[in-house]
């Protein structure tokens, strides 16, 4: 008779895992903040209780390098750069026509991003936008996912002022990193707009005075009715142009706060769940954090791509 199992494991394994999970749930409910509010102080050993989390929004400096304070988020950004370059080197230094497993994985990711770029921006522009969009995507996703590794926030170090700080902290939770990425994205979009359309033609999208002056000329030449209606349209055009310019600038703020808010909110959520019931309650939120990291990376890269595509479209084209 074939061995019956559940979820692919034999029955004893399933029963063992369920018992361990049940024990962890009981311990976590007792030792967390939920337990202490129901049962009062149970006098558990100090390694079972979780202290109230202190959340600090600015990143703490770990050491100083040539006068610059190096914060723990910069160290994590360096770590994700090292991991990304390491993976790329390991895959490409002996690149094969029939790919190995790691090479196929990376080829899948790169090809997916290339298809996205070409789908959104067309063949020629898609390939031109591909490097920066993929770099932003890979950097954001590596920053987000590295901070979910177990033991990431547990390494403590005493810095020069004598305080005990975490050595590593997710780079997207320091507001400077999303701000830097948003500025890079802004410069990238403006550069490609000016390069594709020519400086003056690109600026005409924002300084839209053509209709206004044309209708002034019509007024002077005596065509009153056409002139006045054109004047009105021209005034609306100027106003809309100013709004477009404002929305370009506000895009920087929106990019920054979207990435920063999602990442910091997720980290605070996991910290609070760990405080309430240490072992068990944070597990669904870990899954949520994985998903949110992926989605935010896609959104950042995808929005950069969409704005660059809109910027290189000539003025008469359909602006979505």
């Amino acid at each position, binding site marked *: 008779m074939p061995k019956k199992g559940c979820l692919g494991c034999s029955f004893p394994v399933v029963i063992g895992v369920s018992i361990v999970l049940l024990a962890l749930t009981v311990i976590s409910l007792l030792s967390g903040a939920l337990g202490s509010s129901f049962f009062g102080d149970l006098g558990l050993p100090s390694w079972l209780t979780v202290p109230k989390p202190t959340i600090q929004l600015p990143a703490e400096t770990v050491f100083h390098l040539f006068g610059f304070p190096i914060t723990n988020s910069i160290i994590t950004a360096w770590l994700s750069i090292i991991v990304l370059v390491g993976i790329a080197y390991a895959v490409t230094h002996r690149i094969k026509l029939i790919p190995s497993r790691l090479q196929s994985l990376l080829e899948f990711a790169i090809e997916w991003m290339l298809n996205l770029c070409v789908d959104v921006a067309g063949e020629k522009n898609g390939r031109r936008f591909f490097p920066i969009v993929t770099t932003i995507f890979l950097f954001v996703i590596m920053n987000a996912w590295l901070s979910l590794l177990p033991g990431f926030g547990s390494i403590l170090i005493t810095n020069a002022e004598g305080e005990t700080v975490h050595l590593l902290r997710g780079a997207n939770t320091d507001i400077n990193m999303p701000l830097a990425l948003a500025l890079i994205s802004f410069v990238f979009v403006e550069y490609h707009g000016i390069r594709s359309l020519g400086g003056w033609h690109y600026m005409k999208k924002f300084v839209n005075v053509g209709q206004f002056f044309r209708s002034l000329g019509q007024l002077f030449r005596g065509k009153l009715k056409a002139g006045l209606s054109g004047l009105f349209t021209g005034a609306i055009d100027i106003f809309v142009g100013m709004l477009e310019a404002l929305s370009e600038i506000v895009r920087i703020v*929106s990019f920054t706060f979207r990435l920063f*808010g999602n990442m910091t909110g997720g980290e605070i959520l996991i910290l609070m769940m760990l405080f309430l019931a240490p072992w068990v309650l944070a597990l669904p939120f870990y899954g949520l954090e994985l998903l949110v990291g992926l989605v935010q990376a896609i959104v950042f890269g995808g929005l950069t791509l969409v704005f660059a595509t809109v910027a290189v479209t000539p003025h008469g084209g359909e602006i979505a």
Partner: protein
Amino acid sequence: METETMRMLAAGLCMGLGAIGPGIGVGLVGLGALQALGRNPEARGPIMTNMILAIAFAEAVAIYALVVAVVLIFVA
């Protein structure tokens, strides 16, 4: 009322009221995407991609409210 109480109240109200709009917005995006998917199941790829993008846009406003609430509690 003391500042500590006011700050807590403000943070709670900020996040709570700030999540109403984006909640409805994300639901509407989902409605549109599901209706489009029902009409044309073959266009699943573009529909899902654009749905994710639109959900992230709508979600961002709720995240702004979260940032203000967090700043109210921990920084201000």
